Every structure is written in C-alpha cells, then in structure tokens.
C-alpha cells in the first residue's frame, strides 16, 4: 500500500525491452561505466588525504556548509525518492506527493532541534553525544545497535533495489545478472568506504546530488515545455490519460480506503516527519563541517535542494502520467512505478527508437545508478564508524585503542558490513524488502530521536532512560512489523501472488498496521521517561549544564 513497499523490488517486472535495444544498452552501460570511473577516481584522490580518525570519520571536518548541504541531499535523495515517488505519482496521482511533503518538512526538525546542537556536542557518531553525560558502555552499545539496525535495513532496501533496477535499465532480467549487480554494488560501496572514508563518500554524494539535480531539472523543463509551461494543462492531461479523471489530482486513490489504511497513513506520516532527524547516516553528516554555523548552513542548502527536487518529482510523476503511453505505460505499471522517470525521459527525448529518447533514457538511468551508489556508501560508512568508534574503541577497549587501530577497525568493519549486506541482499532479492526504508524511518523516530531530544533538553535524563528508549523504540518498531501484514497474513492478490513475506499458509499477524510509528514513537518517548524517573544519576544531572554550554555555544567542540 505504500510506495516504499512496492518501490524497486518487484520481481513481477519482466522488461519487454522495447526501449532497450542493444544500442541503447551499450549507451546505458557506458554511462554506468562513466559513473563508476568517476566515483572510483574521486575515492582514490580522497584516500590520499585521509590519515587521522577525524579524516576518516568526519572528512577532517573540512567541508563547507554548501558542500555538506549537497552531500546531505546526495545522502537523502535515495532511489526510493527519485524513482519511487515519481512512480507513485505516475500511478496513483496525488497520493504519491504525500511522501515528498513528509520527507521535506522533516528537515525542520533537524534544522531547529538537532543539527547545530549535535555538531557542537558530538565527535563522530550519534552515541558520542549521549556518552558525554551517561555511562559509556551501555549507551554506546544501545546507540550502536540501533545505528547498525537502521543502516542495514536501509542498505538492504537499496541493494535489492539496485539489483532490480540495474537489470531493468540494462534490459537483462536473469537471476544471475541481478546477483552480479548486487555483488558489484556491494563491492563498490566497500571500496569507496574502505579507501575514501568520509572524504571519498562525501564527494561521491556531492557529485551524485549535482547529477541528480541536473537530470531532474532537464527532464522537468522538457516536460513543462510540452505544455507551454502551463502546470494546469499538464495536470489536466495527466488526469485524463490516467483514466481516473479529477480523482487523480486528489488525495485518496491510494490511502482513502478503510479506517485501517487511513490510520496507517497517519502512522507513516508521523514516522517520516520525525525519522529524518534520527537517521544515523544523516546525523554523522553534521560532523563533517567545522562549526555549528556551517552545520546550519548545510541544512539550509539541503532544504533548498531537497525541496526543489521534490517539486520536480511532482512534474516528473504527472509528466509520466500525461506523456508516456502505450507499451511504455504498461512497463511503468509492471515496474510498480519505478520506470516512470526513465521512460518519461525517453518520451520527452523523442520517444522509443529515437536517438534523443535513447540518450535521455540512458542519462536518467545513470543518474539513478549514481544515486544508489552514493546512498549505500553513506550507510556503510555510518555503520562501520559506529562499530569501530562505539563498540570497539569505547565499549571493548574502554577508550584505550589508538587512533590508528580504530580506523583500521572501521575499515575492517566496512568489509564485514558490505559482506553481510551482499549475503542478505542476494537471497532476499526477490522479496519485496522496500518496506525496510519506511521501517528505518520508524526505528529512527522511535529509538534515536527520543534519546537525542531528551539528552539535549531534559536535565534529569539518564543512562537507564536512554537505554530503555533506544531498545524500547527499536524492539517495538521492528517487533510490530514482524506481526504486521507485511510479514504474514495479507493473503494473495488476484493473480495469486503472495502479498506478505512469509508463505501464505503461515499467519502470525495481529498488528493491523504496516507502519508501526503511531505506537512505537510514543512508546520510545514514554520508555525514555519511565527509565529516567525510576532511577537517579548524579553524574548525568551534574553534567547537563556542561552539555548545554557545549551544545549551545560550541565551547570545547571538536575542531
């Protein structure tokens, strides 16, 4: 029911490759090759300037606010946003747009409540900021667990998506090709992260953001030009071509059904708006700039870029509904919407079989590929950093590890995480795992955000409160999904396809919603409160004024 659930991982898709004659395939493949060469080159260049732990984890804190703003955009605008949202708009009209709004408004939480304060009071990971006034080992273990779980969920969704997407775009649908794609994406991301650290990853994200903005802007302008830059005409044609008429431009096509689906939508909306500011791979980006002011500037840039991008996905989505017809339209439907943008590019370039169409299709496909690479690199780096800095250096070695050992451990961790991600994504490639993106937002909002906010604004907050809120939010959000219709009990659709993850004869579901946020987010806050008031920590309360001075003024902040 949600686009994130259907985005990218639909194995029903078999490309009846009209748009991918062998010439086009060569063109697409060479542009993919160009993206790979470019990013590999950047990584080699960045690796020469990566020496200290601060270089590896935080890019030497040397990026400007604007650069980091682009990198945040590159980290945040995933393939689910780019292909998923435009696809959802192309298929369900207005309802696809609802996602963009949650994804964007969420940045105000990050801007007003988190970015600057975190930059001033942390070092490399989310846990640093908690560990300032709490007991190191329990809070770091908890924060690292939730960081790794969120990042792996997000990573799996992207990698499985990459397998499906690349085979779609290159027009190969064999199992082996998907496996090779997943393994190749996995190896590339390990390469970026091991060698380039945060510097390499950041530059890959910046380049990707520029490519993505350029690509979507180009297609948007071409679409609008077809309608004489009259938005109303575009919408009218889209509504007419969709066969839904006026309803296509109103909310409700997708979520308007039962009371349950309405509550599910509210639950999703809350998780989207609160999740962003708790996503570990976003939080670590604030450490890559020299000051809190630069962190603020980077969020301002990010809001501008991401907002503009989502406005353009609106044009892409309605454009695809209006302009893509015939066999191509059927391909969009079969791909669950994911091919809407690439096929729209083909249509505005002159249509199937034309050179212009082939060039634009290949261009947008390469942009989508760059998008996936940049996002998976950021996720791998974030979880590797947390393993090395939180678990190895501070929990296991109790702060006695040398900087060199810590970075070595981070590189090893990146290998292991990459390996685990490949090993999970290959057998999972035919499952619809794209729901994991929505789940990652729900976990981030339920487990991470309460701990971060309480720590910054509540003096009494202590170790037990932090640990309870993190584990409580994590376990409840993941647990509720385990017993939701996503995992079992949804039955089969009209074509006999199983709609849940488990075989259709197993039904362990009792939680009616697919999005756990409406329960797990309040629970995370409640447990943080309950854990805190049932114990007292003198140190944590004494340290609070210090943390306040640090976070509000930047006195003693890492440089």
């Amino acid at each position, binding site marked *: 029911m949600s686009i994130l659930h259907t985005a990218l991982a639909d194995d029903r898709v078999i490309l009846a490759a009209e748009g991918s004659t062998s010439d086009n395939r060569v063109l697409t493949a060479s542009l993919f090759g160009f993206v790979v060469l470019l990013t590999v080159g950047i990584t080699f260049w960045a690796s020469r300037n990566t020496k200290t732990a601060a270089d590896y984890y935080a890019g030497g804190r040397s990026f400007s606010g604007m650069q980091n703003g682009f990198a945040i955009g590159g980290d945040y605008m995933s393939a689910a946003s780019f292909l998923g949202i435009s696809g959802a708009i192309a298929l369900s009209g207005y309802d696809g747009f609802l996602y963009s709004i949650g994804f964007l408004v969420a940045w*105000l939480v990050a801007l007003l*409540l988190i970015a600057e304060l975190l930059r001033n009071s942390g070092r490399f990971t989310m846990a640093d900021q908690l560990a300032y006034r709490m007991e190191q080992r329990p809070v770091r273990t908890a924060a690292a667990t939730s960081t790794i779980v969120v990042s792996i969920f997000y990573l799996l969704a992207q990698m499985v998506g990459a397998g499906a997407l690349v085979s779609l775009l290159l027009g190969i649908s064999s199992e082996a090709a998907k496996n090779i794609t997943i393994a190749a994406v996995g190896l590339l991301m390990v390469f970026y992260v091991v060698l380039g650290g945060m510097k390499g990853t950041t530059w890959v994200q910046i380049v990707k953001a520029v490519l993505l903005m350029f690509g979507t802007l180009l297609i948007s302008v071409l679409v609008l030009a077809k309608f004489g830059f009259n938005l*109303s005409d575009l*919408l009218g044609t889209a509504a007419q071509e969709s066969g839904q008429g006026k309803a296509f431009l109103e909310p409700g096509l997708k979520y308007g059904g039962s009371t349950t689906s309405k509550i599910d939508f509210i639950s999703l909306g809350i998780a989207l708006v609160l999740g962003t500011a708790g996503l570990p791979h976003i939080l670590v980006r604030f450490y890559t700039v020299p000051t809190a002011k630069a962190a603020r500037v980077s969020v301002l840039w990010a809001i501008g870029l991401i907002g503009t991008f989502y406005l353009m996905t609106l044009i892409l989505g309605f454009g695809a509904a209006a302009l893509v017809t015939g066999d191509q339209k059927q391909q969009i439907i079969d791909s669950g919407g994911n091919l809407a943008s690439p096929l729209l590019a083909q249509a505005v370039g002159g249509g199937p079989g034309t050179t212009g169409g082939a060039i634009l299709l290949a261009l947008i496909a390469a942009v989508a590929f760059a998008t996936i690479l940049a996002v998976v690199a950021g996720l791998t780096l974030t979880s590797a950093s947390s393993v090395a800095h939180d678990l190895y250096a501070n929990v296991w070695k109790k702060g006695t590890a040398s900087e060199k050992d810590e970075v070595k451990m981070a590189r090893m961790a990146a290998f292991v995480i990459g390996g685990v991600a490949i090993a999970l994504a290959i057998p999972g490639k035919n499952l619809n795992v794209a729901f994991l993106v929505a789940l990652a937002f729900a976990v981030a909002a339920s487990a991470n955000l309460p701990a971060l906010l309480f720590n910054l604004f509540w003096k009494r907050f202590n170790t037990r409160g932090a640990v309870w809120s993190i584990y409580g939010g994590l376990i409840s959000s993941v647990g509720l999904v385990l017993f939701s219709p996503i995992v079992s009990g949804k039955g089969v659709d009209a074509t006999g396809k199983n709609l849940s993850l488990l075989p259709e004869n197993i039904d362990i579901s009792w939680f009616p919603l697919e999005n756990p946020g409406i329960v797990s987010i309040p629970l995370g806050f409640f447990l943080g409160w309950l854990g805190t008031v049932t114990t007292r920590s003198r140190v944590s309360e004494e340290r609070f004024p210090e943390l306040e001075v640090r976070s509000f003024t930047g006195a003693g902040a890492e440089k």
Partner: protein
Amino acid sequence: MAEKVSPEVQAEYARIHATPEFAALKAAYRKFVLPMTIAFMVWYLTYVLCSNYAGDFMGQQVFGNINVALLFGLLQFVTTFAIAYAYARYSLAKMDPISDELRAQFEREVD
C-alpha cells in the same frame, strides 16, 4: 562512566552556564524554536488529516486544474522554506553574537 573532562574545563563550563549572556542565549533559542516547532508540526498534521478525512475540501478546484490539495501541499513547501529562512535570519542576529562571544571567552580561558 561519562566522558572524562578536565576540572579546568568543567569549571569554565560552570562559569559560562551561570552568566546572564548564556541565559539570554537559551531564552532566545527557546523563543523561536518552541513555538515554531509546535506550529509546523500542527500545520503538517493538519495537512495529513485533511488528506485523509477532508476529501471534498481538498478536491475543490481553485483555478484550472489546480485544486486545494495541490495548493495545500505546495504551501507546506512554502512554509518549510520560510521557517528555514526565518530561522537563519533569527539565529544570525540574535543567537550567533552571544554564542561567538561565550565561545571566545572559553577559548581564552582554556586553550
């Protein structure tokens, strides 16, 4: 154990925390962030609820094929940009001078 900090640094943190400037900095932050956060959350939730439960209202056409739902959605973009811009202006004028001064004091004492 919490993170280790030298007594000298701790004393300086305590001194800054007790200054009227620091109280003013926190007050300035709260004055903007608290009402604004409540406002944009309420505004966003109103939009989510309207999308769910106020279909007739959202479907009204305003001009051409542009309906209330689209305008309401676009307004969320406008308010997000506007709040971000307002915060940038506000923090530059009201908060940065105080935090810069306090940080400079800290660095003179400790570094």
